[in-house]
């Protein structure tokens, strides 16, 4: 478990799900329908909003995310709800720097469903909003949960994928 305030408040929890839940969630992820998104900010594939899904394993994972004790103990927030979608990055996909701020978003989260080597890209870069330097580089690792506080300082991006795929579930906690 990593907890840090630099460059903004975030936590990294490895081995978040038990083995059986992880296996099921990866299997479910692979069966989801993705739509390609292309804008100034990103190139990636995304599912529809999975918040109100009928798929039980996704509901279970959403509950488990809401129950992360560090939301209260570290972020000092009380979650009311969580939303979720699936993100699939393929070769040359990326997400450029932004801060995630939008009404109701308190904490952003990413649950990685596969592991990438550094040279394959897909890393989450946490950027210092004052000097523009990458202060933390978080590699995608299967079963790793990352959470960070959404604020005017929460500048982050996902580095370009190089001949690989990056699978994750993500969204925001509303507190």
């Amino acid at each position, binding site marked *: 478990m990593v907890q840090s305030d630099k460059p903004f408040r975030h936590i990294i929890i490895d081995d978040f799900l038990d083995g059986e839940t992880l296996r099921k969630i990866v299997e479910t992820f692979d069966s989801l329908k993705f739509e390609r998104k292309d804008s100034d900010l990103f190139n990636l594939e995304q599912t529809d909003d999975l918040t109100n899904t009928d798929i039980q394993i996704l509901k279970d994972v959403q509950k488990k995310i809401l129950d992360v004790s560090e939301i209260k103990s570290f972020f000092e927030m009380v979650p009311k709800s969580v939303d979720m979608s699936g993100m699939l990055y393929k070769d040359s996909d990326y997400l450029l720097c932004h801060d995630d701020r939008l009404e109701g978003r308190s904490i952003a989260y990413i649950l990685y469903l596969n592991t990438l080597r550094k040279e394959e890209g897909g890393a989450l870069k946490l950027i210092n909003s004052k000097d523009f330097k990458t202060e933390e580089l978080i590699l995608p690792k299967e079963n790793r949960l990352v959470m960070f506080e959404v604020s005017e300082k929460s500048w982050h991006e996902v580095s*370009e994928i190089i001949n690989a795929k990056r699978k994750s579930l993500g969204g925001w906690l509303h507190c």
Partner: protein
Amino acid sequence: MNPFYSLDVLNQANAVLKKENIVELKQIFVSGSLSVIRTEILSLKTKKEYHPLKHSWNVFEGAELDHILDSVGIIPALSAGFKMKHPKAKLYILRDGDYSLLHDDVSEENGTVAFLDISDQWNNNWGGYLGIEQEKFELEPNSILITNLFGQRFFFKRINHHANADKIIIIIKSN
């Protein structure tokens, strides 16, 4: 500049611009002369501009660039054919990983804007397209796209790791 683009042809293109708000002229320089012009322009000392939320590119702005474009007929063509007043140019070079974004702080544009592409070669799978709000324009090397903007903003799609050339764009606006 290609002698095909006589004042008569430019006037016809301007009529298209007035009607459609956009016109593209191809083969703007005759065979061979583009590389000479590009070499001269690339001898200008550019500077890196990086703001994670806005852009990453190399730029040059100054009288030397305007003089080159004047001498090769671009500035006179925009003045006479498209009635642009005191056109001023800015050079943008985008390499692997460079981009610009439609950030709230990026100013909206009003009036006629010309995008002159002097890249050596380009493959649209490398990124680098011009986005004007939600519309996508794939600029070709040795072409100029002229458009009337009405409070719109534009961006250049991030260049991906497949690119083996630079996207070299000169943006010309009325001063």
